[in-house]
Every structure is written in C-alpha cells, then in structure tokens.
C-alpha cells in the first residue's frame, strides 16, 4: 500500500493547473526572443502581449499596466522601491518581501483581529506631508485575513499617497478588482494560483510612475529589463484565466475548510482559529494549539503524510514566532504554536479527514492542559 499523502500547504505553492502546463509546453516548444525583429521574435512578442491581457483581466486592469517580473517578491520590491515616494508605510503583518524592501518603512498597526487600524493610518498620514506610499496586503499569507483594501486606498488617496496592494495570496482565491479597490499598484505571483514558479507581475493602475530596479535592455517598456520568461508568462496567463473561471471551486473549498474548523473545535475546545470572526480567504486556517510548538506539530503531521506549514515557507526552515501573530498582540504560546493549513481546488474531503485524524492524534499525545499557562 502506498503511503497516504495529503498536501495542505497551498499558500506556499499550488500545483500547476493543466491549462498552465499546456501553455508552458507550447511555449517551451518555440524559440525566439520577444525583442527580436524576425518572425520568431514577433511570434514570441505576440504571445507576451496576449498573456498581458489575460493577467490584466484577472484583476480588471489595463494590459498596459502589467509589468512581468520574476515573482511576488520582486513585484513587491519594485512597487516599494520604484514608486520614488520618500515615505513608505507598511502594515505590520506584511510578507517579509515587503517588510525587507524598505527596512526603514513606518509600520501601520493592526488590531487584535489582524485588521489595519484605519483611524491610526489616517492620523499617521496627516502627521507628515511628504509624498508617501502605503502598502497593505489584500489577504494575509499566514492567516488568510482580508484587509479592507478599498478603505485603505481611499484614506491613502485623501492624503495624496499611492496605495500598493500585495494580492499574491488573494488573487485567484477571491475576486480582485483593481478599480474597485482603487489600488495604484498590485503584486501578483503565478505559482500561488496554479501557474509556474519564477514569474509574477506588478500591475500599475492609474498614473503611478515606476523607476526600474533591474536595468538593461529596456524590456517591459523600460520598467523591468531582462529577456522575457516566455513559458513562464504563457503559463501565468493560462493559470490566471483558469483561476478566474474556476473561482466557484472555492465554494467547495470553503465548505471543506469550515468542516475542518468545526471538527477541530469539537475535538479540542482549547484550539484557536486565528481570525475566525473576520473576513478570511476561503482556503486558509491558521490553527493554534497553545503550548505545543508549531514545529513539533508540523513534523508530527508530516510523519503521518499530512503536509502543512508553520507560517510562511521561506528561507531557513527555522520556525520562529510569527511576526504576523505578534503584531496582532497574540501571546507567545499562540505565536509559536500556530500552524497554517491551506486548501486548494483539488483538495478532497478524504484529505481533510486525513488531516483531522493526524491532528487529533497529535492533540491527544502532545497537548497538556495548563502547559500553555506554565510556558507563558
């Protein structure tokens, strides 16, 4: 019997959609640099421009505003560093690729539910009149909590600031409309929505000007140099189209996720679902078992063939306390004891059952009433 494996780490990366695989295969089969004048080059250029339209359509943007980059991290850097704004404000729960882009950026506080404190943002912006950029993600990668991006944009614009929205986790999971949000810049990543890794986009809406971060041959209308990643771009476009068409899949995902949370609550009243009472992505559960380290939980689940993560999948594999949960004012037993379970369009009820069986076993084995209080 083969070992059962359940992949519940979709916020780290999603499997490639078949539509994207076909588009990549077709693009890999052809050669040509989109900047070359000859017909192979022109065919490649046409493919890039069609892809630009498909990616733009996912968030209702103008194709001219799409700048293809190497991924979400680069998109966030380009937004923050390329905006040319003297003052940068970022929420305390942003992804590291935003926090690290401008280490001196001012932090915008969030409340206990992880939602940006709008009144404080308003006061912060009023206190300093230098041209500013506000960067707040649409949905958080660790908790799935959805920020009131439209209201943030309105406040930012009232003070003459640009608004950048990292929609890497939200796009493809919930409808995103750049115009409805009022965002000036939006970051997207292909591999989070069923496209290939190594490609993403920064989408420029409105009049935001961009200073390039990577200079050279003047590709992407001077906003991002380097020969275009043609198969990546084609795969991204196909995935974006499929994601837009498959948005209804998330109704089913939502039901599975809610079933998971209900079952956990029944088994373990001590477990905490982060952001349970605010708008969240339909696929994400940040689940805390106070006093049991996230690393221990993740390893125990992995031994049972259930793949989840302890927050963001980044460099070192080291599991430290989550900066996202700390910013929400969570106590140490929560910031170090939370795992992320994230579902996707092929997740099955059997996989949720698999998770629940493994998690229940670890809960019975490892959870000690009162241990959390002692640890704290």
């Amino acid at each position, binding site marked *: 019997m083969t070992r059962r*494996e359940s*992949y519940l*780490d979709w916020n*780290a*990366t999603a*499997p490639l959609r078949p539509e994207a*695989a076909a588009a990549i295969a077709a693009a*890999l089969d*052809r*050669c*040509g*640099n989109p*900047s*070359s*004048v*000859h*017909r*192979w*080059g022109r065919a490649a250029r046409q493919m890039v421009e069609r892809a630009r339209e498909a990616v733009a359509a996912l968030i209702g943007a103008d194709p001219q505003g799409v700048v293809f980059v*190497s*991924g*979400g*991290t*680069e998109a*966030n*850097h380009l937004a923050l560093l390329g905006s040319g704004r003297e003052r940068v404000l970022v929420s305390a729960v942003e992804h*590291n*690729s*935003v*926090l*690290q*882009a401008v280490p001196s950026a001012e932090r915008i506080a969030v409340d206990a539910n992880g939602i940006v404190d709008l009144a404080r943002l308003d006061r912060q912006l009023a206190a300093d009149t230098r041209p500013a950029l506000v960067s707040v993600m649409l949905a958080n990668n660790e908790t799935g909590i959805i920020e009131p991006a439209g209201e943030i944009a309105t406040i930012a614009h009232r003070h003459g600031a640009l608004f950048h929205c990292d929609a890497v986790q939200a796009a493809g999971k919930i409808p995103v409309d750049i115009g409805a949000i009022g965002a000036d810049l939006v970051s997207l*990543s292909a*591999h989070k929505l069923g496209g*290939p*890794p*190594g*490609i993403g986009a920064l989408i420029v809406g409105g009049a935001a000007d961009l200073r390039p*971060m*990577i*200079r*050279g*041959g*003047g590709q992407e209308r001077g906003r991002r*140099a*380097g*020969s275009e*990643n*043609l*198969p*990546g771009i084609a795969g991204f476009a196909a995935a974006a189209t499929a994601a837009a068409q498959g948005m209804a899949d998330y109704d089913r995902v939502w039901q599975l996720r809610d079933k998971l949370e209900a079952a956990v609550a029944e088994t373990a009243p001590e477990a905490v679902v982060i952001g349970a009472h605010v708008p969240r992505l339909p696929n994400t559960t940040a689940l805390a078992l106070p006093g049991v380290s996230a690393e221990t939980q993740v390893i125990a689940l*992995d031994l049972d063939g259930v*793949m989840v*993560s*302890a927050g963001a*999948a*980044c*460099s*070192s*594999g080291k599991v430290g306390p989550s900066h996202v949960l700390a910013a929400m004012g969570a106590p140490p037993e929560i910031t170090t004891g939370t795992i992320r379970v994230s579902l996707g369009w092929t997740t099955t009820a059997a996989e949720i059952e698999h998770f629940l069986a493994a998690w229940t076993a670890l809960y019975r084995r490892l959870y000690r009433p009162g241990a959390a209080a002692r640890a704290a």
Partner: protein
Amino acid sequence: MSAVSPVMAQRPNALPIYLDNQSSTPLDPRVLEAMLPYFSEHFGNPHSESHVYGRNAMAAIETARGEVARLINADPREIVFTSGATESNNLALKGAAHFARAHPVAGGRARDHLITLTTEHKCVLESAATLEREGFAVTYLPVEPNGLVALDRLAAAITERTLFVSVMAAHNEIGVIQPLAEIGALCRARGVLLHTDAAQAFGKIALDVEAMRIDLMSISGHKIYGPKGVGALYIRRRPRVRLLPLIDGGGQERGLRSGTLPTPLCVGLGRAAALAAAEMGEEATRLRGLRDRLYGNLMRRVPDVQLNGDAEHRLPASLNLSFPGLTAPALIEACPMIAMSTGSACTSASVEPSYVLRALGLSEARANASIRLGLGRFTTAAEVDFAVDALSASVSRLRKQEKVTEARGIPTSG
C-alpha cells in the same frame, strides 16, 4: 533567389532557419525532459522544509546548483540563482558597490570607482550609470578596433579607489572573447574585484573561476538551450566577495536573493550546464566548422564582406558581418527565411546603429550595414548552405537596387 534549395523542401512549415542563437536558444529536449517532473508531481515549494514535497524540490535545486558550479570550477555554495543574466549583472554591480559604500574598510576610504567597457551589454552599462548617479565614479574604457580591451589601458585605469572591473567574457553582438585570465591576474594583483558577464560564454567556452581569478560571474539559462527566466550569479567565497541584495524578503539564497526559487527552471539550468560540460569540446569543433563554412562561402560568393571583431578570439558559432552598400534592416527583410538580427535583441527594434560597432570605430554607414549571425546546437550544414544561398542572392540584389537609386539621385533610406 536561386532555385528552391533542398532545405526549403524539408521545411514545409515555412519556419525560417534560426541564426539568432545569441538572442535566445531553443530548449534542448533533454533539458525539457529534466524540467517536466518539477512542474507537476514535484511541484512543492522548495523552501517548505517541513514536508517531502518541499524537500524533494530543494534536493533537485541543490543538484542543479552543483551542475552549474562544476562547469566553471566553482563551489556550489558560490552559486546564487536569479531570474536571468540581466538581474545577475544588476546584482553584481549594484550589490558590490552598495556593500562597499556601506562597509568602508577601517581607516581607509571606501572604494567608489568602477571600470567597465563601452561595449558592454546594456544591463551592465545601465547599472553602471545608476551607480554614477549615486555618486560612484565610472570609467568606460574604449576597446581596440578588434573589440578587445587593451590590458595596458586597463592597468592604467585602475586606481586605489577602484572597487571592481566588469568585462564581458564573450560579446553578444560581435562574439569576441576577452582575455579573462590576463584581466583576472591583473585585477588580483591590484586588489580589485573582477566581474564578468558570461551570458554568452558560459557553456560555450571553457571558463574556470580559479584559473581566471574571477570574483563574480553572470550566467544565463536561455542562452545555453536551457529555460528562460533563470540565471545565476557566481560569487566567490575565498576570499569572500560581499554584496548587498537587490531583492530582500524571505532570505532565500543565503540572503542574497529572496523569492521562491522556480524549481523547474533551476533544474533546467543545471541540466543545460551538465550537457554543455559533456559536449562542449565536440560541439565547439562542429560549430566552428559550420561557421567557417558560412563565412568562407559568403566570402567567395559575395564581394566586399567584412568581419567585425577579432577573427581569432571569437566564440565558435558567432559572426558579425558588414555588407557595405546596403542596410541591415533591408537585408533582414529581404531574407524572411532566415531569422537573424542586427545586434542585441534588446535594442534591435530601434533603428539606431549599434553602439558596439561604433565603438570599434566603424562608420555609421558600415555599422548600419552589419548583421549578426549565430549558429547553435541544432544548426545543420544544410541550413548553413541555404543561408549562404539566400544571403548572397539578397545582397547582390539589394546592392544593385541601391546603385540604381543612387544613380537616379534619390536619397537612400536608412
């Protein structure tokens, strides 16, 4: 054009012959085969160390890193994956300069001077220009008429303030190979770092970071029959070369390049490097033979063909030729069955004559009459013969037209 060549008969789909391999190369099917599983069953995020999907992906990336390192005699830990050579060049130049400015040597002043060549790729020149605007001093050294840098000139340009020299290993437009070992020895003796943009050279000619004393080397995937969207930067560990990252975040690639690594692309670059390592010697001989056949037959059939760039120190598969009496865009238009270009793909859409050819001292007219021909792994002798037929017929027809136009006193287009 002469009667339908046998090559034409073999090309029912009417695809042109691809002689633009400097711009991009087709993916080798063996590379594709290696990549495919990492698009599908091994799709995990390589940085998800908590489960086997992630660990399998990272293991494949580390194998690829070793394959890239081996081709240039480096340690795998000295290879950082990037989105391509443009990013690698930006990271090398800006990263080294910014680190030096942020960490001045105790007691001394920060090194704030860079040397590069006027014929470098746009992404090196643009990065240097950015640093210039930030207050760094940049010397843009001219090259000799053969495209090579004069070592005594380079030696004279190095000062106590010089941080690094950036010289392209092999040229994208004219194919000339710079004397890297000599440049490396000179830089090492003077305590200056050497960066080389090896996008065109990596996998085509032997490169050895130890023997050549190279400190930083930019590498591209899609120039060596690997995938687009991936490249690498070699960063010497001993003595250690320090850079500030361009892209920060999750801290991947030892903090030098954040962002989720694209597993299939890294695997493809690794496989492409391994294939190049195994086949480079024989392939170079084969390509040199084809190139000499192309050049020799053109010389015989077309009067007044001039080779741009040094004839000897040149990539095996690269030619840059002037056909005085016509313009390159007209020739490209007249030969739709050959995919070729006037120079760098990045700038080939513009009508300005190549700054590289002008730097060799070519007149504007001759620079405008120059095309770049690049053969590759999948180029055949039959294709070369077809190209000779098509080019020689088109050149003589265009030259005749040009003469008629001149005789009538109509200004020529250009």
